[in-house]
């Protein structure tokens, strides 16, 4: 009927990144309260892990692929730590913000679109994982676990892994109604992806039938790239293939997450 537009006052900012930044800020405000607890889980635990397996078991293993066992599993533990943080922060917290806290509904009532929430969460996760990786690398240097300056490349590798893992898991969390589905996710996806992705032993030792599980897992690709980086050698497959595969997960996951959020917040 009327095409007259009333003057926009105070808000309705045309800058599209503003809501994303605001979502990231919310997560950072929360993180400021919880970081001490997360230091334990995302930092101290992997170090204990390295000491127990790398040094304890490593004494029996001796050397593998020309390096000591500790140096060999450092990139594996690093990537699996990043993986655990990604999964942990994209399951219960995401479902909780839909179901119990209803924080996403609150954002939705403000001029924040579902895709802004997905993007904000992803950016925050990349930041969090990067923090843990930096701390981890600093400690591992003192163990003599890094053999090349290329080790710094694990930072962008883990950022890519974060995008490849956080987005599909977030999409899953946005689709389910009950948290008991997470038990299935952990058992059938997260644990196999941790145990059979070249973290503790070369994938070549797996029976041929199980190896495709590793090749399909984004974790294996990130472990391969990171191991190549910390040991300063070439990965088993062409770098482009590893990166391309992780990118594929990230893009498909992002589309799925945006769709799932839009659907869940619609009605």
């Amino acid at each position, binding site marked *: 009927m009327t095409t007259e537009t009333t003057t926009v006052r105070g808000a309705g900012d045309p800058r599209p990144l503003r809501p994303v930044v605001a979502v990231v800020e919310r997560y950072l405000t929360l993180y400021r309260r919880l970081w001490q607890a997360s230091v334990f889980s995302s930092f101290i635990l992997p170090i204990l892990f390295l000491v127990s397996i790398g040094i304890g078991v490593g004494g029996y293993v001796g050397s593998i692929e020309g390096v000591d066992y500790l140096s060999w599993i450092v990139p594996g533990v690093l990537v699996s730590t990043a993986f655990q943080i990604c999964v942990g922060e994209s399951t219960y917290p995401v479902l909780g913000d839909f179901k119990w806290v209803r924080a996403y509904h609150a954002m939705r009532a403000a001029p924040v679109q579902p895709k802004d929430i997905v993007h904000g969460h992803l950016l925050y996760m990349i930041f969090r994982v990067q923090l843990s990786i930096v701390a981890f690398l600093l400690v591992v240097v003192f163990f003599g676990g890094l053999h090349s300056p290329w080790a710094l490349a694990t930072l962008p590798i883990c950022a890519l892994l974060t995008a490849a893992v956080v987005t599909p898991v977030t999409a899953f969390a946005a689709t389910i109604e009950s948290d008991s*589905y997470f038990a*299935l996710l952990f058992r059938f996806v997260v644990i196999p992806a941790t145990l059979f992705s070249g973290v503790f032993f070369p994938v070549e030792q797996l029976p041929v039938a199980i190896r495709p599980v590793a090749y399909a897992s984004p974790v294996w690709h990130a472990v391969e790239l990171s191991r190549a980086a910390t040991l300063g050698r070439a990965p088993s497959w062409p770098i482009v293939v590893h990166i391309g595969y992780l990118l594929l997960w990230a893009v498909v996951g992002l589309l799925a997450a945006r769709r799932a959020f839009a659907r869940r917040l619609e009605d």
Partner: protein
Amino acid sequence: MMTTLVAARISVSPGRVGAVINRNVGALRSGPSYWVVLISGFFEPLLYLLSIGVGVGALVGDLTFDGQTMSYAAFVAPAMLAVSAMSGALAETTFNFFFKLKYMKTFEAVLATPVRPFEIAVGELVWAVIRGSLYTAIFLGFMVAMGLTTVAGALAAFPATVLVGLAFGAVGMWVSTLMRGWQDFDLLGTGQFALFLFSGTFSPVQNYPVGVEILIQLTPLYHAVELVRALCTGIVGPGILVNIAYLAVMGVGGLWLASRRVEKMLCL
């Protein structure tokens, strides 16, 4: 077993304990993917066994333990079994128990009936151990099938895993009555993980410096691993009596303290 031990002092009605257990069975069945979650629980230890035992085992080869040479998988599998018995019981008596105690007010409702706090503690513990023992039994089946222990070893080790479940379950229940909030579970999880890594699970404790070795010998999972490993491998010495005594004291003490705490929290 635990019930008869303490029955002399406090009268316990098996019927009322059964009612507490039955509530848990009902709650489990009402979940959306009850059977899948239950059955997939068997799947998890198998994955660990394949990954660490077989995968890492191929890197390690054989090792010598108490003068006998065995495959790494045969060395590690009993420890995984003990850990599985511990964490199975702990999952039920810490996280779930705390939730029922603090948020669902389940026990307040139960205590309005003739059921007593001690019977709640016993019921919850027995339930935790039944659930955990289902998994350890399957785990032992895998071990026999993979040639990591004998049938006799498995039959001897099974009651030991039940004892491990009772010991950790009881202490876990007491600890969860002392929890202030969810954030304390992070600490518990960290402690559990540290025990997992340093209780002779992945490599013999004799490899550690003497001071560290003695320290480890004071912690509970060490005794659980020692006991289960001795029975699975058949290398049994008088030391297992110490292990059994340690775990039994944990179970009885934990149960007594837990029921006292429940009574204090809910029956004032």
